[in-house]
């Protein structure tokens, strides 16, 4: 049995995983990163638009601060997020971006003087201040009050990932590439690493560690069409689920991005609309102002995606052999702007659609994009039920996004969570010793070996590629943007059948080393379980919140549903997961539930909401001299690692 020991094992080499690894290494712990692919190829690189941090340097970001970023994030989440975590996040994001700047990200900078920009379909001139020249600038994104999304042209994720991986290389952090964690090792409620398959040799290796962090990204590939990379299959989430101890949070919270190209589902950044692009229907008509007169194309993502779908259902879509779509018009931004700030978008249009977006409209439609759900963690990033297991980034339900994530808050989360969770991982490594028995390691190793052997000797059975395609179709057709009880019940039943069939997979190519069919055979049963968590959670949640939109339960129901879905899979032979709920405590909220300001407000309010509102009023009255920091301390005291506690400086405002 091959065993590799380390202090901090990080599964996933994207932004979140690398940042956790850097934090462990900085604190002197032996660290190993496992990755399916070379780290710089992780899906973090695909983030085009940018990272939200309330630096407030550009003129349209003037006056921005943590309070406004916090309010936008909580509203965006439809009050489904953990406000402690959202608070930690907004306070740390400016530090994260400045650290990345020191580590080499060439963030686009403020340029003094007049600039012509497009706002609400019209050309206007804005004037950047002299004193802000050379500071990190920002662009507009959906659902935000200020221009807060800091960027590098439209390659923000790429430059962040390169800087982060280069930092990891500088520190000598080993990244073991082409390795897939297929099971967690655990004993008495404590996690001690993972059983890992080498994707080239096929050998199984036990990586035994004090702390294990899962940072494997989202589960977008449960859907047939997704903007996600092909490796975003949720396997990290699935191995946590399969412990029967760790819980997954809010798996039904799945985001659809308004503007992926048709048919292949590749993303065009929200920056297209942030920079002034418009959505048009088959008549060339700009329809969003009719639905959302205030924020128009820049309403929150879930809202825009639903409005687009509604509009297409009215027959206003452009028909194509791949179904209806709408147009994204960025022609009004002009060649110079597109070739500089939206160049990746231009390349994608040229290569995949054969069009020049400077001259022609882009065919788009809402497409699966982001997984708000994931491994449920405490604010420290540790699983509340499986000690020593941590998670960060999209793989986690740290829960700063609730039921809808704002554009620009995901890459921001990866690095901020990486910083914060990384410190707690290091704390855990220093406070705990590694005392797992060899027989436990052997037990998990043997179990996984047997599963693979069974696959390799079975003569007849199911085709893993076909099972996957069927699962993806069910998710597309029945667990999409708009959901209803009937479809969801069918999806749950159909997935149950697939779950059983997935136990009888047989291979045509029966070799244990490098073998794409075997990889699929190992992953597909895991993916089906995750799909069941999503569909079942969606069926049970009889309200509409954020991206979870029920046609049969239109209202957001705080009275009955202000809670987080928790999913476990205790018995591997069961054909459904177990679902419980954890209440969100209104009486502890810094920002009690209110209206997001989109469409008709038909919220069923929680009885505590007016009480908490009154309490906050009273606290404010009782402390008339309190500044925003003191007030936050009174309303929402949060734990945050010592080194990230300081206030953030802003131009023209100092540390106020």
């Amino acid at each position: 049995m091959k065993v590799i020991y380390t202090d901090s094992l990080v599964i996933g080499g994207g932004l979140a995983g690398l940042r956790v690894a850097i934090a462990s290494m900085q604190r002197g712990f032996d660290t190993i990163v496992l990755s399916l692919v070379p780290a710089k190829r992780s899906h973090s690189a695909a983030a085009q638009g940018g990272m939200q941090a309330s630096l407030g340097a550009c003129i349209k970001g003037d006056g921005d601060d943590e309070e406004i970023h916090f309010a936008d994030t909580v509203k965006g989440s439809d009050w489904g997020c953990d406000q402690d975590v959202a608070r930690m996040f907004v306070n740390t994001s400016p530090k994260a971006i400045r650290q990345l700047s020191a580590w080499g990200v060439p963030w686009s900078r403020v340029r003094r003087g007049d600039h012509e920009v497009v706002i609400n379909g019209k050309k206007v001139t804005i004037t950047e201040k002299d004193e802000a020249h050379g500071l990190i600038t920002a662009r507009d994104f959906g659902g935000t009050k200020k221009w807060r999304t800091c960027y590098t042209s439209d390659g923000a994720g790429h430059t962040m990932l390169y800087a982060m991986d280069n930092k990891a290389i500088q520190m000598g952090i080993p990244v073991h590439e082409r390795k897939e964690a297929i099971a967690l090792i655990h004993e008495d409620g404590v996690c001690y690493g993972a059983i890992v398959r080498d994707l080239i040799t096929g050998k199984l290796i036990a990586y035994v560690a004090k702390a294990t962090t899962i940072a494997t990204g989202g589960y977008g590939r449960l859907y047939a069409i997704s903007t996600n990379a092909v490796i975003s299959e949720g396997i990290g989430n699935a191995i946590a689920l399969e412990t029967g101890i760790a819980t997954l949070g809010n798996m039904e919270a799945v985001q659809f991005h308004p503007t992926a190209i048709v048919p292949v589902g590749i993303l065009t950044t929200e920056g297209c609309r942030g920079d002034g692009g418009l959505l048009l229907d088959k008549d060339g008509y700009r329809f969003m102002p009719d639905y959302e007169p205030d924020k128009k194309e820049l309403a929150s993502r879930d809202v825009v995606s639903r409005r687009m779908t509604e509009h297409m259902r009215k027959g206003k879509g452009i028909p194509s052999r791949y179904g209806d779509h709408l147009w994204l018009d960025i022609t009004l931004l002009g060649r110079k702007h597109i070739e500089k700030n939206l160049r990746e978008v231009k390349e994608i249009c040229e290569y995949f659609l054969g069009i020049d977006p400077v001259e022609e409209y882009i065919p788009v439609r809402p497409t699966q994009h982001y997984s708000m759900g994931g491994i449920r963690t405490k604010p420290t990033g540790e699983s509340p039920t499986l000690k020593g297991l941590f998670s960060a980034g999209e793989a986690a339900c740290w829960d700063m996004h609730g039921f809808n994530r704002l554009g620009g808050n995901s890459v921001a989360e990866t690095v901020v969570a990486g910083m914060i969770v990384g410190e707690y991982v290091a704390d855990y490594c220093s406070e705990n010793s590694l005392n797992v028995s060899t027989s436990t390691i052997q037990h998990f190793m043997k179990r996984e070996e047997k599963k693979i052997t069974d696959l390799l000797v079975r003569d007849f059975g199911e085709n893993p590629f076909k099972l996957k395609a069927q699962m993806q179709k069910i998710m597309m057709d029945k667990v999409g943007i708009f959901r209803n009880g009937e479809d969801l019940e069918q999806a749950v039943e159909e997935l149950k059948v697939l779950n059983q069939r997935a136990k009888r997979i047989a291979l045509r190519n029966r070799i244990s080393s490098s073998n794409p069919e075997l990889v699929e055979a190992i992953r597909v049963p895991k993916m089906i379980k995750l799909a069941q968590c999503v569909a079942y959670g969606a069926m049970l949640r009889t309200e509409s919140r954020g991206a979870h939109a029920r046609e049969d339960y239109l209202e957001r129901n705080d009275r009955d549903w202000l809670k987080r879905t928790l999913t476990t899979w205790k018995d591997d032979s069961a054909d459904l997961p177990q679902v419980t709920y954890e209440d969100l405590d209104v009486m502890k909220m810094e920002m009690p539930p209110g209206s997001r300001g989109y469409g008709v407000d038909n919220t069923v309010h929680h009885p505590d909401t007016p009480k908490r509102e009154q309490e906050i009023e009273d606290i404010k009255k009782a402390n008339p001299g309190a500044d925003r920091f003191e007030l936050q301390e009174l309303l929402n005291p949060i734990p945050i690692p010592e080194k990230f506690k300081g206030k953030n400086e802003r131009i023209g405002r100092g540390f106020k």
Partner: protein
Amino acid sequence: MSDQERVLKFQIFRYNPQKQGDKPRMVTYEITEAPGMTIFIALNDIREHQDPSLQFDFVCRAGICGSCAMIVNGQPTLACRTLTSNYEDGQIKLLPLPGFELIGDLSVNTGKFMRAMSERVESWIHDAYADEVNFEKLEERMDPDVADEIYELERCVECGCCVSACATKRMRPDFLSAVGFMRLARYALDPRDKRSDEEFYEIIGDDDGVFGCMTLLGCEDYCPKDLPHQTQIAYLRRKMAFIR
């Protein structure tokens, strides 16, 4: 996008070094073309319906991660964004990218090469104070044009096309190649990196470095991101010629 259905003929290099006794060979697969079909779609179709053992690497399938470079009809390129309709006779020959360790079929180990390259050119900001930076304070300012220029050079996706297209690399196994020069040029341009020209010379000032380049410029011709390799190699060479 053509609506006409035609049958594509893929000739694909097959060899699995993990499998005892396996020999390199070309295998032909036929599939029906679909509108908007890319090589990514075609290869997955072949794997799912004809040969589940076929190895290849895709991650983003959107031309931004650099995983899928291979030789398509004699030319190195990103397979994911290559439309099958580009090939009029419907014949498509695929070979793994040369210059890298073969994993199997069309899959090569670019990751190992690129990590070594990054270590060799020390692909990070050299500044003793970078780790002590007080991130509560305003970040250090940068001229907006300089930031844009750095990004121009940082658009490299480490796909390896330049390495595979380089004749010098064929003759000198340790030749750094354009990807390494581009990375170094990016740091040389960055005011945050405090390395001197003498220090850069230590890395690239020999025949395995910038003086070994025969200026055939396959890198410039085949870079999927249209990076200015020619200009940067010339610039580095001139800069290095002034040292010693």
